[in-house]
């Protein structure tokens, strides 16, 4: 019987592991419940927070008013049921049962023995219990309790639903981790406070316990008085009546001020120490939301100039640099920058960057060929297709950059040489062309990609009407044949994917582009 059950379990585990639909569902629920980077998780969290507030509203309303039966039903059964389903789903997605069974089976097969069912089950139970023992899971379980609302006491378990709020608020998780970083200091403070409370409670009880005018007639009152006084709240419902009692009060008040100051400074210092970490986490979160961006590795002086150009074009940029000072400088300039090593794989794992979907171009702009080659190799190993542009500081390293998979290499020295040659040869023409490249010039050279619709509406160059928009058509880059046709004749055929190279004032170019896209206007 046990053998049959074991075989059944193993075959089910293998089937589930190879079942795409099962894995897809499991991944979906895992993302929905546990993955903060999953885009639909926030909607789920908002929904759960809404349910919690409904529960709390019902609890408060119930104190003095009759609550609508339908609402009570929703509170006691529907919401509880949703929480129950959520709890079971979390239990399911936290830790893989199939993985344990398969691993156990493979392990036993390797050792040439029978499948150890008990061992596998014990591992499964242990794994699930370790999840269930987590504070968050306990709160989840207690939040389901109002389901058994007939037991009056269990109604108070609604309050555990409020604690569930912490699960859906990331900032609370941050707070807990901040406080956890000062565990030792808080423990010391707790010990000190406990000793002060204990000593002062004993003292005040011994001194005032037998005094008929005193309110402290039992030890609990003494502890209560100590806590109220130490916290500097001082309700005044219990006050010492003897000289000795007042002396103890002075001692406890002074200790209280110290305890509070220490407590406050602990929290402040913990937050200060972790502030950069929080800011970085927030920046990474914001980067994950970007649809497309330019990744700049190294905040060099050339990178600063490039960023100026990109900002002009309203493009999203992310800078990573291994130098803390440069990162801070970039942040001051309003650039999204992170203190990460551009050549390290870990940096991109921390960024959660999806090169294929998010990164338009990677620019290796460190003024060091070694760093640029290393960075290019790292990025190329993460994504085969992302476009990489790199600076080259010394021509002997050109081949190394090409070998590392860099698509475009910029060698400033060579550029300056070429520019100088043209500059001294044809200064006026050079200036005319250079002006087109400059961001300060109002006249621009731009590219317009011919779409299917444009090609249908304007099949020939002569149909474009660029002169009406005061635009010079320098030429057409034909997708077919990948050739540039300078100053094409009017009968040149335009096809989807061709690129028009136009020169003109930017607003006119935009108007011209709009005109090309507008089918109706052409029809008129």
């Amino acid at each position, binding site marked *: 019987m046990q053998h049959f059950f074991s075989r059944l379990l193993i075959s089910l585990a293998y089937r589930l592991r190879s079942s795409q639909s099962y894995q897809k569902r499991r991944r979906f629920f895992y993302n929905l419940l546990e993955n903060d980077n999953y885009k639909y998780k926030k909607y789920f969290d908002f929904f759960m927070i809404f349910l919690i507030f409904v529960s709390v509203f019902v609890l408060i309303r119930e104190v003095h008013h009759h609550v609508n039966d339908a609402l009570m039903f929703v509170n006691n059964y529907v919401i509880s049921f949703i929480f129950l389903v959520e709890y079971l789903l979390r239990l399911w997605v936290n830790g893989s049962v199939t993985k344990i069974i398969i691993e156990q089976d493979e392990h036993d097969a390797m050792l040439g023995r029978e499948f150890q069912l008990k061992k596998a089950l014990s591992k499964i139970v242990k794994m699930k219990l370790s999840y269930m023992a987590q504070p968050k899971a306990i709160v989840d379980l207690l939040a389901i309790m109002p389901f058994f609302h007939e037991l009056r006491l269990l109604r108070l378990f609604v309050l555990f639903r409020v604690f569930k709020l912490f699960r859906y608020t990331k900032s609370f998780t941050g707070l807990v981790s901040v406080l956890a970083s000062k565990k030792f200091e808080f423990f010391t403070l707790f010990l000190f406070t406990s000793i002060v409370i204990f000593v002062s409670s004993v003292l005040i009880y011994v001194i005032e316990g037998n005094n008929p005018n005193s309110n402290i007639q039992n030890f609990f009152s003494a502890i209560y008085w100590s806590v109220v006084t130490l916290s500097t709240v001082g309700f005044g419902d219990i006050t010492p009546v003897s000289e000795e009692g007042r002396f103890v009060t002075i001692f406890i008040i002074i200790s209280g001020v110290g305890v509070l100051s220490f407590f406050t400074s602990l929290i402040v210092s913990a937050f200060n120490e972790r502030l950069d970490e929080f800011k970085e986490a927030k920046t990474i979160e914001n980067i994950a939301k970007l649809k497309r961006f330019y990744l700049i590795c190294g905040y060099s002086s050339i990178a600063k100039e490039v960023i100026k150009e990109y900002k002009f074009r309203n493009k999203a940029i992310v800078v990573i640099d291994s130098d803390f000072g440069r990162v801070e400088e970039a942040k001051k300039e309003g650039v999204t920058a992170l203190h990460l090593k551009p050549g390290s794989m870990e940096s991109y794992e921390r960024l959660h960057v999806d090169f294929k979907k998010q990164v338009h171009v990677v620019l290796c702009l460190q003024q060091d060929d070694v760093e640029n080659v290393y960075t290019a190799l790292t990025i190329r190993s993460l994504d085969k297709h992302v476009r990489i542009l790199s600076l080259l500081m010394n021509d002997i390293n050109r081949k190394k950059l090409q070998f590392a998979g860099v698509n475009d290499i910029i060698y400033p020295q060579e550029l300056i040489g070429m520019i100088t040659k*043209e500059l*001294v040869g044809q200064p006026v023409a*050079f200036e005319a062309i250079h002006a087109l490249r400059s961001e300060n010039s109002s006249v621009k*050279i731009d590219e317009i990609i011919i779409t299917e619709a444009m090609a249908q509406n304007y099949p020939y160059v002569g149909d474009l009407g660029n002169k009406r928009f005061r635009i010079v058509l*320098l030429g057409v*880059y034909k997708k077919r044949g990948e050739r540039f046709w300078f*100053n094409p004749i009017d009968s040149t055929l335009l096809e989807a994917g061709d690129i028009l190279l136009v020169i003109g004032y930017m607003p006119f170019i935009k108007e011209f582009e709009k005109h090309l896209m507008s089918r109706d206007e052409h029809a008129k």
Partner: protein
Amino acid sequence: MQNKKRALIFGSNKYAIEIANSVQSIYDIEFFVTDEKEEIEFSGRYVKNIFDLSDDWYNVEKFEDTENTIVFCVLDEEAENVFLAISLRSNFKDLVLVAIAANKESVSKLKMAGVNKVIPIEQTTAEIISDIIHNPIASKVLHGILYEKSDLKLAQIEVENAEMFDGEFPADIDWSRYQGVVVLSIMHKDLTTEFIYSSKAKRTPLKNGDMIIVVGYEADIAEFEKQIGRRKYVNWSDWSW
């Protein structure tokens, strides 16, 4: 046979070498370095002079022929480069000075020091990076026209037969009748340059002496030249920024 013009390059860094390699076909190159021991790549091919910025180092003869001499200030230290430019300008009013600068701050200082043309390294590199990414085709075409052996050429043609336009404004002229060339801009006698479709080009008729900047194939440019005027090689001393 006419003597080649002279290019005097101050500095021996990689930029200086690259400039020397680029202009050696047009100019005779002479280097000026501060230290006798300074190695210059291909030093056998170039003349090497020693100078000391703090000293009275001018060999006046070398700088006298301002018509045929161009000076490149390519020292590593920005301050020294500015000092060099001021020293040269204060002694030789008409000398053509070209300098490279790391950033915008140095550009303005070098311009104030009297340099005719300053090439900002970082800004220029950034512009080209930006172009390669955003307008790759345009960048390739312009790069080909400007720097590489492309069939397309840029030319500046001086107008000599303005009467043939009969007072027409540049923006209204049907340039398509001059097959093969694309007219980009007009440079007037007062050295102001206007895009062919600018407001000014719509109001100011072409006059003899104006310069037209065109792009085209060599043969088409030659044909255009025949009809409009002649190709003009601008003298550096006429040119100011």
